[in-house]
């Protein structure tokens, strides 16, 4: 809401500066977003008096003027057709900037020197008017600065009005607040309306079909009006608060809207057919061309204004083109109504018609002030248009406004605010806000409830937000000053029954994040939105489980039209961003939610927290002294194993997903190949693998991209309770034997270890791979395992260990196609 300080002062004699006012309003909940001076650039421009005006000797369309500017007399060449001797004009001196751009310079026009410029309204930024220079009233003092001479609204505050305070969307509304805050008197402009002509209240038949749609409808008829420019002062004022002047009749409706907050609409009465105005919902299939020239399809929920034959306006939102005020209009029907906020809001939103009128109706217009607004508007219209206001007021008010009576208990107020206020403060404050306050006798149980003072409060009609005790307490606090409330610390009583509850999901996810940071990964945060296109691209034709995706109904753009089903798209995009910045070693992680459809859920969505890891490029960011080389599957798997052991989870199995059946394979990320399933006790907790080069390419990745995602809800559920048991340290030394297996490509290290384990050799305590070698040009691989034997009660002899080893080797060769 743009508030002109001088306009405000017409209602309340506030003497502070605009900045002080803004500060004070901010502290009562009407935050000043900005303070600007719309006519500041007019300040160096002065009132001049044209002493002489002669035709330019060399050019018919130029005049040479001698202009008195107070401290000097200037020769100015002017091209405007309307310049003449004796006029008062706006003079821009040499060296002064024009409000619309450019600096006036000393010039010679066709040989005649010119020391300044006479300006049009357009050049001054006052309006669109550029036919000739601005002619000022003859009484203005020569040499005076233009904003002062014209009494322009030169200070405008931008006040952020919260949705509950529709009553503050006007000069009057803010003036009431200033009056309440300062104790200054509020003065309403005197009404100077004269009615004439025969009574017209029966000429227009008003009908409201549903009182819930429109609770009040008043009209005034202005006859003999002529459409012309509004007086300069009114136009400049509207311009200062961001409204474009149109014509006298329309400008008055805008002026009253800004001043009193009551939206009005002017119809050309000659276009209102059949002498009737009906307010009711539109009929299915009806359309209306609104003032902006657009044909709108209407719904029964839209409030229409219609004459005997047709729709002539969209009530509270925008008028119809068919009944618009034009240059030819001379008879005006001026509508002043109060429409249902919800209905207006629905229509305005559906049609994206966010007019100033709709904005105010949505937030509630003061039904008790409608009459005054209409009278003031009608009087102004008559005055500015040369017409007269017809006697009589066609009106209906099917649903008169009644304010609620709200009980306010002092004890409750002070307990909620944590302060003690003087006894008289409540009554005085609420009265200043124009509430009717009546102290009530204390109820019989007053002593018991501790109540010591109570009031019945009836708020004024424009305060639709005051309906409950809490609302009144807020008013008291607001005017007392919430910043004066002293700080104190509450005692937080904590139920002991909550102690010992399991770690919350948030805390667990936090521990996962700190593990990942410690493991050398950088945390990224990506938007939860991705695009269907990107998911399709990653998943390929078979993998796209589109029916499980959660689409956004009203996405910002097509890049964000679906919720992520995996962390992969975001991680890959983060990789891409960094590769374009020249990164050569990237280790990222993200802990975030992925989304899938689940109709049984309350929100129809299943949300699963995941950990995503991405590895790309050099193993170490630093070249020396680390070993060179790119990260590969073993780096990724090592991280996952480290995670499992850090969180004391059961050991995970890594199973090549290509080996599982096609039905299972479908649930796996299609963009990974190889894709490795991470299983714990036969349950899949996630997957790891290499992004297919075709997919990786679109993210600028030229090397292998390794990724893993784990379902953190599953991981959380796997944690073991308590610490693992302590194992006593062995007393007797171990004996080691190394064994190299030569195996074909289908035999995995895991298979060999599993076979050895299955032998349950009594003295064997562990076996693990210590060397791995792929000889050039041969299919077989050499896998060397270290077998560790130990006896709990004595030192082993070499011979018995050798026997065990040989037995293992023999069994292996029998059960697997390997050579030892």
């Amino acid at each position: 809401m743009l508030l002109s300080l001088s306009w405000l002062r017409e209602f309340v004699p506030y003497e502070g500066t605009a900045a002080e006012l803004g500060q004070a309003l901010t502290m009562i909940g009407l935050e000043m977003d900005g303070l600007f001076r719309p006519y500041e650039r007019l300040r160096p421009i002065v009132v001049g008096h044209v002493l002489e005006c002669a035709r330019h000797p060399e050019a018919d369309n130029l005049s040479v003027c001698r202009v008195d500017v107070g401290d000097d007399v200037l020769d100015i060449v002017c091209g405007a057709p309307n310049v003449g001797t004796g006029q008062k004009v706006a003079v821009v001196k040499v060296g002064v900037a024009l409000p619309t751009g450019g600096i006036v310079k000393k010039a010679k026009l066709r040989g005649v020197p010119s020391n300044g410029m006479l300006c049009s309204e357009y050049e001054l930024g006052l309006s669109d008017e550029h036919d000739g220079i601005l002619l000022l009233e003859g009484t203005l003092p020569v040499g005076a600065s233009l904003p002062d001479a014209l009494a322009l609204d030169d200070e405008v505050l931008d006040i952020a009005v919260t949705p509950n305070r529709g009553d503050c969307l006007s000069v009057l509304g803010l003036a009431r607040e200033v009056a309440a805050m300062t104790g200054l008197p509020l003065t309403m402009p005197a009404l100077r309306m004269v009615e004439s002509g025969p009574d017209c209240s029966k000429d227009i038949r008003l009908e409201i079909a549903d009182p819930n749609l429109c609770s009040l409808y008043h009209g005034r008829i202005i006859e003999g009006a002529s459409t012309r420019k509004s007086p300069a002062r009114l136009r400049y004022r509207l311009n200062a608060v961001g409204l474009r002047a149109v014509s006298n009749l329309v400008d008055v409706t805008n002026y009253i809207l800004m001043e009193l907050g009551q939206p009005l609409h002017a119809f050309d009465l000659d276009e209102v057919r059949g002498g009737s105005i009906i307010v009711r919902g539109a009929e299915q299939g009806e359309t209306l061309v609104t003032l902006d020239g657009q044909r709108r399809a209407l719904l029964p929920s839209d409030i229409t204004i219609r004459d005997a034959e047709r729709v002539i306006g969209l009530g509270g939102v925008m008028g119809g083109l068919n009944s618009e005020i034009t240059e030819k209009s001379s008879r005006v029907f001026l509508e002043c109504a109060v429409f249902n906020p919800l209905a207006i809001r629905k229509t305005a939103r559906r049609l994206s018609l966010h007019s100033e009128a709709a904005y105010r109706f949505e937030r509630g217009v003061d039904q008790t002030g409608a009459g005054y607004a209409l009278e003031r508007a009608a009087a102004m219209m008559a005055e500015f248009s040369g017409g007269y206001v017809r006697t009589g007021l066609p009106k209906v008010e099917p649903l008169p406004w009644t304010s609620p009576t709200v009980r306010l208990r002092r004890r409750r107020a002070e307990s909620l605010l944590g302060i003690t206020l003087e006894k008289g403060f409540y009554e005085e404050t609420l009265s200043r806000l124009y509430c009717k306050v009546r102290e009530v006798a204390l109820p019989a149980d007053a002593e018991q409830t501790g109540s010591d003072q109570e009031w019945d409060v009836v708020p004024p009609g424009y305060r639709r937000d005051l309906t409950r005790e809490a609302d009144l307490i807020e008013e008291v606090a607001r005017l007392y000053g919430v910043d004066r409330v002293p700080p104190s610390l509450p005692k937080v009583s904590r139920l002991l029954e909550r102690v010992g509850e399991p770690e919350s999901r948030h805390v667990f996810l936090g521990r996962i994040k700190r593990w990942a940071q410690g493991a050398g990964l950088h945390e990224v945060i990506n938007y939860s939105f991705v695009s269907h296109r990107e998911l399709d691209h990653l998943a390929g034709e078979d993998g796209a489980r589109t029916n499980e995706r959660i689409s956004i109904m009203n996405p910002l753009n097509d890049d964000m039209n679906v919720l992520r089903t995996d962390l992969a798209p975001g991680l890959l995009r983060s990789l891409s961003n960094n590769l374009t910045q020249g990164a050569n070693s990237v280790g990222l992680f993200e802990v975030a939610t992925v989304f899938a459809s689940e109709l049984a859920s309350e929100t129809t969505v299943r949300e699963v927290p995941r950990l995503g890891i991405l590895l790309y490029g050099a193993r170490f960011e630093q070249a020396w002294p680390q070993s060179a080389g790119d990260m590969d599957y073993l780096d990724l798997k090592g991280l996952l194993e480290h995670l499992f052991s850090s969180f004391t989870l059961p050991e995970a199995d890594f199973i090549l997903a290509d080996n599982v059946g096609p039905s299972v394979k479908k649930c796996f990320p299609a963009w990974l190949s190889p894709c490795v399933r991470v299983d714990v006790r036969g349950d899949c907790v996630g997957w790891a693998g290499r992004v297919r080069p075709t997919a990786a390419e679109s993210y600028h990745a030229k090397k292998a991209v390794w990724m893993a995602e784990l379902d953190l809800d599953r991981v959380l559920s796997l944690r073991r309770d308590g610490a693992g048991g302590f194992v006593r340290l062995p007393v007797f030394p171990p004996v080691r034997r190394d064994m190299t297996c030569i195996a074909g490509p289908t035999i995995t290290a895991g298979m060999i270890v599993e076979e050895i384990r299955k032998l349950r050799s009594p003295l064997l305590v562990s076996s693990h791979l210590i060397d791995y070698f792929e000889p050039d040009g041969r299919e077989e691989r050499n896998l060397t395992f270290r077998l560790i034997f130990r006896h709990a009660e004595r030192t082993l002899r070499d011979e018995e260990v050798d026997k065990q080893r040989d037995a293992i080797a023999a069994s292996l060769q029998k059960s697997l196609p390997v050579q030892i």
Partner: protein
Amino acid sequence: MGIIAGLERLEPELQSGLEQASSLSQVDDLYTAFLGRKGALAQLMGHLPELPAEERPAFGKAANAVKERLAELLEARRQFFLSESELAEFARFDPTLPGRSPRQGSLHPVTLVMDEICRVFTSLGFDTVSGPEVETDFYNFEALNLPKDHPARDMQDTLYVSDGVVMRTHTSPMQVRTMLERKKPPLAIIAPGKVYRRDSDLTHTPMFHQIEGLLVDQGISLSHLRGTLTMFLRELFGKSVNVRFRPSFFPFTEPSIEVDISCILCGGEGYRSKGEPCRVCKTTGWLEILGSGMVDPAVFKAVGYDEACAGFAFGLGVERVAMLKYGIDDLRMFFENDLRFLGQFT
């Protein structure tokens, strides 16, 4: 040659041998030659039975003295070579070579700030809770006194998943969820998480992070809200920060309070040292930092709590706090995930 004479010759022989020795291994060889199992001294001792019985104790004593002496000589020479080789080794030692570090990871500034805020409130006895990011209209709006078609819904441009299901526009639904789950006061919770709005420009991203706080108990007042938030903000931004309360509007609190802190760049002056206008607070001296208020009775009603109970709630934007704390001036940096940015938050 008598064995006594042999004993006496050992020392000078070893001495000359040690003088000629040029390395540690030669010293070790001399040790073997003189004091080893089959060394010179041992050989002499082998002749002991040849001596008359009465001379044997004296000889034994002398032999022990010689053994000790030889050991001393050998050890001295050994130490000489050891320190010499140590010196040679360290002469080329370069302590300025880069270390062999494990990979250095980092936490996102949003995570760091959330952790810090949660830590303050956890220490006060608040529980951390989390909930869904896709919410029903009931939790996100209706139970929070934001009925359908209410203009207050304009304050939060909403992304819809379907009719009645939205991307949560704030973390406030966690107030409703927790109150319903816990059934009755007292409760003190803090709820960090992602929130979504249909908004994208220089100062808005469609996804950002909020932290919601709620305290409900007997006799909780606006004064408590002020005390708690003042303490928290000073914990977060430093003891010298001033806190300002001003009225505002949120449908789920009444009274609603906007909380400002004195500008952390200009110290609340509005201008920098050279009279240059402060770009952070735009000369107002104050920074809007969080929204708060006393829980609206309508919210208590929606969750079936006694309307006589009292509580306060607050919410703050994590990115905004992070920007102020770290001096980050571009919101978009948070979601570009540039390693040069992330790497600064180790």
